[in-house]
């Protein structure tokens, strides 16, 4: 039996909701290289072909592929000491979406589902958890289908079920008939699934009221330069619009970082549009007064090896890698933790996946020790023993 969404205080969620905090996850699918972003090792055998550039944070350098980020480091908290436990893609993606390693017995909720539960609005026309170009769907797990993600295509288009080609009065009649049939079924079967289905259907219908939010064309020309002319830039603009409309969690994906071959060529193509859009998003949120309440999380599921293989690539690595946070009370201009001279291991202040999730929840005003129950087993939203990295939070 799933008691996951029952054993929680509604008043606690109400209190958190008042803070109006939001989160955007920039998901670098495949595992972006720390050596080609925030933890360069110039002059070392592991250093690779790019060169570091100075930043607006004295004494801190980043990769030359991040010129815009380099001038916005005062807004970022970079963690150079991630040490996580799942080195393959499925395991890593699950881990870095839920905070937990995948198990056969428990379906853990994604971060977006947790945020949706505590920061979402009950009767919003917009979903509370939206993924633009999703790469994984562990979903709401034991929190239940109410907190499932709503997924958009790589172009940010709504799924076909979210739009209707019928005239509104015809659609209303059809919905009335469907509701009648569903009511009869629910009375006779007393099934939870019927209630969940009705909620999902009603959510889809309410999307009709807000479908214009998803069409960024009216804003794209004026924002093209800010976000960069790329698919990822368009996704980030859409994320800003959704956040502005009150969606508490939006995940924006960029694919193809799994650079076992041609690591340098690949990062050379992937990073410039990504960093352009990322800085555009930070700037836009800041200008609209939203950055103070919006947490931007930047990460992939794994890092990449110090060793460069004979395919000019880097393989999977989780002993030492990098992530970054911005906004929502995160200290800007901070580099937390350090790796050793070759980037082979964490030298100072290791941060586990649990610590990272605890810090994110804390920044969003959600107590990381909040427990849900899977059967009789209490499960905190950040794993037992996780510690908030207090130095990162203002």
């Amino acid at each position, binding site marked *: 039996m799933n008691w996951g969404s029952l054993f929680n205080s509604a008043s606690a969620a109400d209190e958190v909701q008042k803070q109006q905090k939001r989160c955007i996850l920039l998901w670098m699918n495949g595992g972006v290289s720390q050596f080609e972003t925030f933890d360069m090792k110039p002059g070392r055998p592991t250093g690779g*072909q790019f060169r570091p550039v100075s930043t607006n944070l004295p004494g801190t350098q980043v990769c030359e592929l991040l010129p815009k980020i380099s001038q916005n480091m005062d807004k970022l908290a970079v963690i150079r000491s991630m040490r996580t436990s799942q080195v393959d893609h499925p395991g890593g993606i699950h881990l870095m979406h839920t905070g937990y390693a995948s198990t056969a017995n428990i379906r853990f909720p994604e971060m977006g589902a947790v945020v949706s539960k505590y920061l979402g609005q009950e009767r919003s026309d917009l979903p509370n958890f939206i993924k633009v170009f999703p790469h994984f769907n562990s979903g709401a797990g034991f929190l239940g289908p109410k907190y499932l993600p709503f997924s958009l295509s790589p172009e940010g288009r709504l799924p076909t079920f979210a739009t209707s080609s019928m005239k509104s009065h015809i659609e209303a009649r059809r919905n009335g008939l469907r509701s009648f049939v569903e009511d009869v079924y629910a009375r006779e079967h007393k099934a939870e699934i019927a209630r969940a289905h009705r909620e999902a259907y009603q959510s889809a219908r309410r999307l009709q009221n807000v479908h214009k939010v998803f069409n960024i064309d009216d804003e794209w020309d004026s924002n093209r330069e800010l976000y960069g002319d790329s*698919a990822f830039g368009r996704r980030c603009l859409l994320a800003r619009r959704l956040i502005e409309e009150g969606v508490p969690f939006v995940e924006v*994906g960029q694919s193809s970082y799994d650079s076992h071959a041609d690591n340098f060529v690949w990062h050379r193509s992937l990073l410039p549009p990504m960093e352009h859009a990322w800085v555009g998003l930070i700037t836009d949120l800041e200008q609209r007064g939203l950055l103070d309440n919006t947490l931007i999380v930047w990460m992939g599921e794994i890092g990449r090896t110090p060793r460069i293989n*004979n*395919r000019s690539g880097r393989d999977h690595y989780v002993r030492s890698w990098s992530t970054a946070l911005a906004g929502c009370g995160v200290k800007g201009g901070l580099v937390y933790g350090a790796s050793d001279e070759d980037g082979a291991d964490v030298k100072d202040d290791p941060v586990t996946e649990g610590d990272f999730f605890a810090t994110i929840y804390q920044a969003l005003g959600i107590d990381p020790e909040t427990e849900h129950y899977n059967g009789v087993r209490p499960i905190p939203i950040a794993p037992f023993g996780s510690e908030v990295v207090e130095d990162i939070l203002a």
Partner: protein
Amino acid sequence: MPEVNPKQVWKLQFEGAWPTSVAFLGPGRVAAGNRDGQIFVWDLTDQPAAGPAEGESDAKDKKDDEGANVPPVRRLDGHTNGISHLVSTNDGKLLVSASLDHTVRIWESDASATGNADVVLDRTTRERESKRLPQDKRQEFLDRPGVAVETQDAAAVLKGHADWVNSLGISRSGQRLISGDARSNVIVWDLEERKELSRWAGHSWNGIVAAALSPDGQTALVSEYTYKRDDFDLPAPGLKVWNVADAAQKLDILKVHIPKFDDQATTYGAASVWRKFIKGGLITVDYSPDGSLVAVGQGGETDTGQVHLFEAETGKLVRTVSGHKYGVCDVRFTTDGKHVLSSGRDTTVRICQVADGKEVAALGKGRGGQFKDWMHGIAISPDAKMVAAADIAGFVHVWQVWA
């Protein structure tokens, strides 16, 4: 041209960072560059010596037919990042290097040395062999002297680029150079005057990955490419012929060959139109000696990397030749235009007949696990007898291919 009858003559040790490029300086000397920006010059005028050179380790797996090793005589100093290409004039007097340090450097082969240095070119071998020694002997073994070389500085540094210089070509006369960078800028240089003759840019989302000048230096073949920006954002590549004098586009080969090619579209669907033909980028190009054909190699990690031969004037595909497992690294026509050579990610250099595409020889053999070591840059000696190739495992191979 005599019959192809390859025999490896030299196997020059150049361990450390990957050797990427190679060029002959006349028939008796060869230069090679690596990913650290080092360039060394070897003198090959003497007959191959038996066994390893003094001060260098003998490779454990060395076989009699692999060629001999000699130490280099000179190191060319100045680059601060990887060497992407080396080219030389036919008389061997000038060597030109392109680098990821944003510069092109010109080296005079008869220049006086500027100093001396002790260099270690068997680092990988030493590290492997040191593991068989007692712990207290290892560091001493690793730190023992290498070989003495002269050092030399560049005669000129060409600074027209602001990013990685990925591509470099030279006209047959040796009067003009072409270089292209990762920001899509192309520059044609007067090599003697060491100044820009012409400059243009490709699409801003691409980098210039290959460039070559026609034998008379009047036209240029330029390949633009970038890896995808994600699975649903794939900028279109370019393969165009340009007039050097006015930097005007003369021919768009991809539009000739692929009627539905849309160079402004970045969607998955648009990319499916060109993906099979381009594979991991057309990353190497060369003009035939008479300028009638161009050879274009499919790079990246692909199933089978091949070489397309096009008519230079019309862009018509003549035939596709060769076949490297996992992609082509470099391509060169022989001086008589009868053969086209390609190096690849399968540790081989393949020699194919231009007339019918038949492969007549494969130099080297696959080395590695599932993914093989790359045979990177290649060069043909001015007397059209020798072929050299940069092997990422830390060697420069030199074969006598034609008697």
